Structure formats: structure tokens, C-alpha cells
């Protein structure tokens, strides 16, 4: 494990911790964006550059914006109305559940053959062409299923908007 890995991990974990503990919701989202960029850096470290770039494109460019729009509609964004509940009953129960989930997930992930630490090879260069070929040759059914899901979501959004427009007329 080289120095770059530890630095990027520190930044990522810092982003995640800030995202759950900051007072102002918009600051939490900014910390979440830092977390996403840290994950993208991890991908780059693992030489999966396509995945890292797509992570930035989708998560930072779209998902974070979606979260920001949703936050715009909540009240008490600054978190200054009312006391904060830290180390109360709710906090402890959440921490216990999160810890249990983490242990279960770690067990499940490490027992999968995919999680074996592969021998370090500098020749392992991912190529976008191979990802594309794999997508349309081996994994075409999940690809098409996701495409149908996204299309359904898009059409659903348009239908909801159309209903609103017709109601307002």
C-alpha cells in the first residue's frame, strides 16, 4: 500500500465523516462531493480510469446536483433551529445498526472470489473497448434491463409533469 492510497483514503473518510456530522445541510452535500471525488481517485489508483471518470461525471455532475435540489426544498437547511441530538438514544441505535451492517458486509465481500487480492501487475490496463465489448456481449441483458428502467423513469417523469400542466390549465 503506497502513500497515495493512504492520503486518498484519509481524504475520502474525512469527507464521509463530515457529510454525516456537519450542521448545515449544504455543507454536508459539499463533503459528500469530496467523498465522491475521493472514490473516483481510488478508481484511478486501481487503474480503472473509465470508471473513475464516469464516477465524476455521474455522481458529482448529476447525483450531487439532484441531492442539492432536494435539499433546497427542505426546511431547516442551516441546522440552527433547535438543538442537535448527538450521543442520544437515536444516535447510539443508529451507530449499532451501522456497525452490525458493516461487519456483515465485510464478511460477505471478503468471502467472494472477486475480492481476492490479485498479484500486482503493471500490465493490467483497462481499456474502454473491452468494457464496451463486455457490455454488449456478456452483459447485454442487464444493460437492456437498466435501459428499460431508465426509459420508464424518464417517461414517468414526463407523465407526472404533463399531469401537473393539465391540472393547472
Amino acid at each position, binding site marked *: 500500500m503506497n502513500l497515495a492510497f493512504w492520503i486518498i483514503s484519509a481524504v475520502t473518510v474525512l469527507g464521509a465523516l463530515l457529510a454525516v456530522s456537519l450542521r448545515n445541510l*449544504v455543507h454536508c452535500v*459539499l463533503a459528500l462531493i469530496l467523498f465522491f471525488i475521493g472514490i473516483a481517485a481510488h478508481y484511478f489508483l486501481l487503474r480503472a480510469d*473509465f470508471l473513475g*471518470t464516469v464516477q465524476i*461525471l455521474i455522481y458529482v*455532475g*448529476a447525483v450531487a446536483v439532484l441531492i*442539492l435540489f432536494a435539499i433546497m426544498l427542505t426546511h431547516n437547511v442551516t441546522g440552527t433551529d433547535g438543538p442537535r441530538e448527538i450521543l442520544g438514544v437515536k444516535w447510539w441505535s443508529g451507530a449499532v445498526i451501522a456497525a452490525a451492517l458493516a461487519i456483515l458486509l465485510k464478511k460477505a465481500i471478503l468471502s467472494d472470489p472477486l475480492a481476492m487480492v490479485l498479484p500486482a501487475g503493471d500490465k493490467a490496463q483497462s*481499456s474502454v473497448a473491452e468494457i464496451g465489448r463486455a457490455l454488449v456481449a456478456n452483459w447485454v441483458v442487464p444493460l437492456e434491463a437498466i435501459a428499460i428502467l431508465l426509459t420508464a423513469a424518464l417517461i414517468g417523469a414526463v407523465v407526472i409533469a404533463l399531469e401537473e400542466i393539465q391540472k393547472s390549465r
Partner: protein
Amino acid sequence: METIYQILHTTFANVPAWAVQIAAFLIPIAFIFGVYPAIFALTTLVERKALGRIQNRYGPNRVGIFGILQPLADGLKILLKEDIVPRVADKFTHFLAPVLIVIPGLLVYLVVPVAPGMVAVDLKIGVLFALAVGTMSVIALFMAGWASRNKFSVLGAVRAVAQVVSYEVPTVMAGVAVIMAAGTLSTLTIVQRQGGGLLNISNWYVFRPWGLVGFALFIIGGLAESARCPFDLPEAESELIGGYHTEYSGFKFALFQMGEYLAGMAMAGVTVTLFLGGYMGPGSGPGLAGGLISMLWFFVKLAGMIGLNIWIRGTWPRLRVDQLMGFAWKVLLPLALVNIVAVGFWHFLTPRPLAWIITTGWLVIWFLVLTKCNASAKLEKREYRYV
């Protein structure tokens, strides 16, 4: 960067490798930091003078001959202005937004090749990186509007985000057409593929039918992503005072302008790379002379694209927000999808003239269909009752 490393290593053979590596790392960054903000400063002046000439007046011509010291005067003025932060603004976000809007603009220049082998980082996923980093500016726009605690700023920010996100889709799809034709995501390879042919010009992707449509889509998308006219609704001065940068003064405002102009020039640079053949032109090739001629060609094309941007700014009126969104989703997106199919035709139809005919016909038919479907309703002849 590898090319520069090779050149330096062979020239200064007795310097240790780590020093050469650091130099090879710093030279492209110094180039980007030096050249592009200088071009930005020059562009502000050229834009004002060109807009003035279009509007039958001189541009700024008091500061220095032909107004050449005007950017200096502007910079000095804006440095000396008072930096006002509203009392109820979110200080951290308000401070961070102008910084975050300049960074993506500068990052795109890393993958724009200026001469054979001269690209700051030769990423295998160059084009995707450029487009992904361009989407990071959306967050900064929203942060700027939100942090100002001003209803007009939030409105401007929401409209800016909606505009940028909607126009990203046809832009990326137009880029996908070029990627399909070139078979690679690396910008350096795409430019090399556009060499050869008559005078190094006839292989440019803009001279192919799908390339022309993609070029138009990319220009429109680039104008919309950097919020320039005719898509400058986010900063529409006549409607929203300043939109998302209303509450900024002093150097933060200058950073907003710089970020917007740098993003616009970066999109122009990517357009030149993808469609206009990058640094390819008569006389460009490897070696010192060929490299210098290539650099000249690149900057001539970049200047041409910036000039086109300025020309469009001086001519077309601003689009209303519903017209803007309708245009993106109803006209540009279907056209981009149709363009991708056209590239498929081009690739698989083997006799070249047949490929030309079928691709051109397909694109023309779909263009006419889309514009016909989206044409606004014809107004009936009005009847005046009291004439």
C-alpha cells in the same frame, strides 16, 4: 508530457532523471497557466472591440493605443474594489463557489493537444475526462446562487443548473459520434486520425456529414455550457440583475468572469480538437518546424472559434428559458441520436459515395422532420375591429 520528457532527456543528457521529470511535469502546467489566462485577457478586449464594431461604435480605445492596456486597467480596478459579503450569506460556500468554478475550466486544457505529442497529459480517456470535468462546474453555479441568500440568485442558479445539465446531453452525444468514428477516446489519437488527406485538411471531421451536424451540436452545447449568448439567461442583466453572481463584488466577480470565459475557451479548444483537426493543417508534422506550424494552426483555429462565439454574441437575441429547454430536449437530443446512427451508416457502408449519399440524406430528412415538428404555431392574420 512524455514527449517533453523525451526531448529534455535527450537534450540535457547528464541531468538526473528525477529533475528532468519534474521539469517535464512543470512545463505544460506553466504553459497552461501562462497562455490561456493571457488569451482570456486578450479575449475580453477583442470581444469588446469586435462587439463595438458590430454595433457601429469603437470599442475601448482610451487606455493605450487601440485600448490594448484595457485588460490591465480592468484587472487593477477589480482588485481594488471592496469585497462585499452579505451578512446572512453562507460564508464558507460563498467563498468556495468562485474558486470551484475556475478549476474545471482550467482542468479541461490538460487534454487539449497543441502540437504533435504536446498534450499535457495523454489520457486514454481524454475526451471523457474533458466532458466529465466540465460537469463539475454545475455544483459551483448552484453553490454561488444558494450561498448568497438572495431569491434572484437562487432563481438564476436553478436556471443555470437546468440549462447546463440539459445541454450536456446533446454535447456528449455529439462527441460520441466522433469517438465512434475515430475508435478511441484519446484526444491525441483523434487529432492524428484527422491528418493526412488533401493538405491535412480534407480529413477533418467537420467535412463529413455527421461531423458537420456534430460540429453544430457541439458549438451550441459549448455556448450553453459556458452560459454565453444566446444562452446567457443565468446572467441576464435585464431580468435577474446578475443571476447567480449578483452578490459577488471585487475579485470574486472577476473569478466568475474568468471561469466562464475559460470554460468557453476550453469548449472551443475541445471543438477544435474533435472536429476541426486540432493542430492539423498544411505543414504540420513532427519535428521542430512542423511542431511550430502545428501550434500556429491550433491557435488560429482557436481564435476562429472564439471569433465565432463573439459574432454569435453580437447577433442573436437571448432565448427564453422554456424555449431553451425545449430546444435542447426536443430538437438537439433527437438530432444527436440520429447523428450516432448516421455514424453507424458511415462506418458500415463500404462504397464511399453510397455512404455519403445515404448519410447525408438520413441527416437532412431528420433535420427537416425535427424542425417541422417543433416549429412554433403560425400566428393567424389579426383582425382589427376599430380600423
